[in-house]
């Protein structure tokens, strides 16, 4: 077992990273050792990273050197809020150190350079003019290289980045691979390197910071109402509306909670948005944990679309669609998106595929296909249930049924309606013609390789054919049965009940 991370005091005692645990214990007898749980640390660090989006909306975890431990923030356009880059860096680092973290940071024009300075020349702000000079002085380990490349560079006597940069590129590439040149170019800014922000960037948002942290849900919702008003005014000025709204709650202890609501129509009505959030809050109940308090609340809008000014006049049509959409929004935000559904008719002859339930907010633009009107039951069971049937072989009408432990005498029946299996959907092999017998090659000819036959099961058309019957029992209950498979095949066919007629 090896030491993978240690604090400053342990380092002062002479313990190094990668040292054997037994040796470390021998050096310092009273050493506190904890087993590292990498997965937990990664997710914890990711949550910790999300909290930093209150400083800048573009935050990412850099995984080049280690799965956790490196955070990159894009400060373009947000440093003025802190009074400059140096105050911003100072404030972030001070705050994290006050919480007990050992942290070092730097601001630089490129991601590679910022990483280099943060690890090897911390606590400075470098602008693009002096970037090249400062970078030249750093050791080569500041370039995020692999162990092998670092060992080879050390062997060759190249200790500073400036030494490596002056060499001819072709020979460097031949010796170390293209990644070395990439890293150099990224650090100096010749190649652009991008970071993928953890939270989606929102252009339109309004936020509020609190001097004292708040924790009650009512206060959060009241703030959300104010923020919705401010955001909607801004959207109104820009002529836009949005379909998704996200509420970010930044906690004091570096965690973020996110709530999202969706609306079926593009909207900028603050009352509607606030109602959706209060319904969403009722759904949370146990998940809401404010911890030590909430520091800042931000309301962001995404899925923006142009929305003209609404005119309420004498000629608006008396249609209920707007009311229904708002009702669906409220239901979806309270009960969940998969709890409010609409039926979509599809073109398929299999009954369970002919209709699909879609969330009602995603149902915009559903066209009604021109489908033939078939006699179908008004209720369909999600899973067809096995029944026992006595019927004449091979395709006589059913005469008696046992379903869920009860007997029914069927006095009327209509059918069969034969529905074949959808052979184009399953991964089964079709054999429409018998396979060709390869003829022996003539003398002097190369033998033709046999055609490739995939290792799939054969499609059994008869075994998956369904014969549907509409039956009625003596008291007037009407059912929809089907028989899977045909008589005369290798297996006995099975009967199922699929639906209930009106």
């Amino acid at each position: 077992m090896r030491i993978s991370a240690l604090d400053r005091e342990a380092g002062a005692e002479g313990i190094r990273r990668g040292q054997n645990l037994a040796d470390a214990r021998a050096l310092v007898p009273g050493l506190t050792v904890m087993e590292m749980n990498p997965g937990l640390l990664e997710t914890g660090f990711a949550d910790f990273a999300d909290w930093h989006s209150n400083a800048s909306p573009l935050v990412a975890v850099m995984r080049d050197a280690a799965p956790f431990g490196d955070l990159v923030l894009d400060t373009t356009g947000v440093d003025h809020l802190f009074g400059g880059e140096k105050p911003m860096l100072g404030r972030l680092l001070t705050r994290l150190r006050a919480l007990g973290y050992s942290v070092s940071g730097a601001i630089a024009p490129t991601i590679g350079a910022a990483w280099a300075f943060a690890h090897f020349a911390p606590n400075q702000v470098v602008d693009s003019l002096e970037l090249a000079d400062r970078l030249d002085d750093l050791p080569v380990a500041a370039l995020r290289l692999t162990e092998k490349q670092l060992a080879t560079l050390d062997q060759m006597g190249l200790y500073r980045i400036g030494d490596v940069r002056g060499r001819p590129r072709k020979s460097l590439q031949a010796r170390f691979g293209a990644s070395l040149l990439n890293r150099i170019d990224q650090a100096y800014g010749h190649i652009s390197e991008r970071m993928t922000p953890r939270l989606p960037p929102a252009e339109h948002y309004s936020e509020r910071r609190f001097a004292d942290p708040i924790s009650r849900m009512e206060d959060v919702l009241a703030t959300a109402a104010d923020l919705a008003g401010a955001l909607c005014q801004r959207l109104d000025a820009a002529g836009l509306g949005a379909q998704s709204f996200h509420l970010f709650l930044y906690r004091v202890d570096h965690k973020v909670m996110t709530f999202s609501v969706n609306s079926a129509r593009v909207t900028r009505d603050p009352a509607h948005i606030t109602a959706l959030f209060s319904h969403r809050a009722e759904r949370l109940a146990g998940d809401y944990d404010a911890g030590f308090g909430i520091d800042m609340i931000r309301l962001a809008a995404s899925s923006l679309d142009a929305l003209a000014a609404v005119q309420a006049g004498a000629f608006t049509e008396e249609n209920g669609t707007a009311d229904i959409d708002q009702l669906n929004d409220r239901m979806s935000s309270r009960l969940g998106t998969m709890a409010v559904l609409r039926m979509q008719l599809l073109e398929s002859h299999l009954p369970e595929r002919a209709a699909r339930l879609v969330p009602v907010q995603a149902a915009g633009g559903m066209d009604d296909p021109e489908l033939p009107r078939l006699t179908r039951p008004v209720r369909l069971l999600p899973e067809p249930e096995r029944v026992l049937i006595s019927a004449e072989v091979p395709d006589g009408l059913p005469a008696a049924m046992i379903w869920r432990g009860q007997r029914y005498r069927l006095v009327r029946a209509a059918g069969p309606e034969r529905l074949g299996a959808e052979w184009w959907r399953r991964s089964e092999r079709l054999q429409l013609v018998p396979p060709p017998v390869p003829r022996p090659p003539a003398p002097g000819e190369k033998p033709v390789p046999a055609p490739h036959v995939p290792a799939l099961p054969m499609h059994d058309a008869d075994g998956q054919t369904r014969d549907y019957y509409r039956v009625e029992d003596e008291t007037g209950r009407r059912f929809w049965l089907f028989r899977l498979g045909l008589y005369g095949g290798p297996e006995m066919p099975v009967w199922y009940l699929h639906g209930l007629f009106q």
Partner: protein
Amino acid sequence: MSTQNRHQRLAALRDIIADIERKPALAEARQRVASDQDGFPELPGGLLQEVYTDQSRNAGAALGFALAQAKALLTPRRMAVLYLQLVGETQNLGLPYGPGLVSFGFDPAALVLIRPANMAELLWAAEEALACRAVAAVIADICRPHKALDFTASRRLGLRAAEAGSSMFFLRYGSERQASAAHLRWHLMPGVSNDKPYDDRAPGNARWQVRLERGSIGKQHAQWLLEWTENGLSHIPSPHSTRPFAGSTLPRPVPALLADGLSQTA
């Protein structure tokens, strides 16, 4: 004599006043229903109706009856019907099926399915839906009796329905009746269908026997045999009518008709 008459009249008037005070929606509905037709009346919105049927295997019939009434309540302004069913009861009862609704005669685009997780959410959703002015009817499908569906909850929903003008249908199963403040309570049994014209053995149009257990809509009888066709609900009068038999009592010799339609006797 006259005092007894007066007492009876006063008692009848008191009953009517109490009825109006307790259930204003039902009294208005009775006024609106035409009393000279013999068929099934077209009931207006704003009523809380319960449809009880004995077993869950009659679920299709119950849904058909509720949809038949809901279809009559759809207008361009009230364009949606909401169907609520608890998530755990889907395999027991089945969900409404799109092509089935099309063959029934109901537009599936007008139906919104809501699947709440528990009864509290179902009651919240029903109340929220009834309060919306663009909903024609709310159909709640409840398989098992539930403690939360007590008199208070149903009274609340009844008031909401009356004030908003949308109807609420509860589809319940079993022979026990829970206390509720429903305006109308139906007992539904499936009925044997008639013959189809070209196929003797096929099931015909759907038929239901409904009996009004509670509430009255101003008709003489409270039991109907309904048939659902593409023209709507029609009432089939029972074969035992109260009129005296108007035909002849003695059988007369009826001349046989030849294939060409000419009578043999003159």
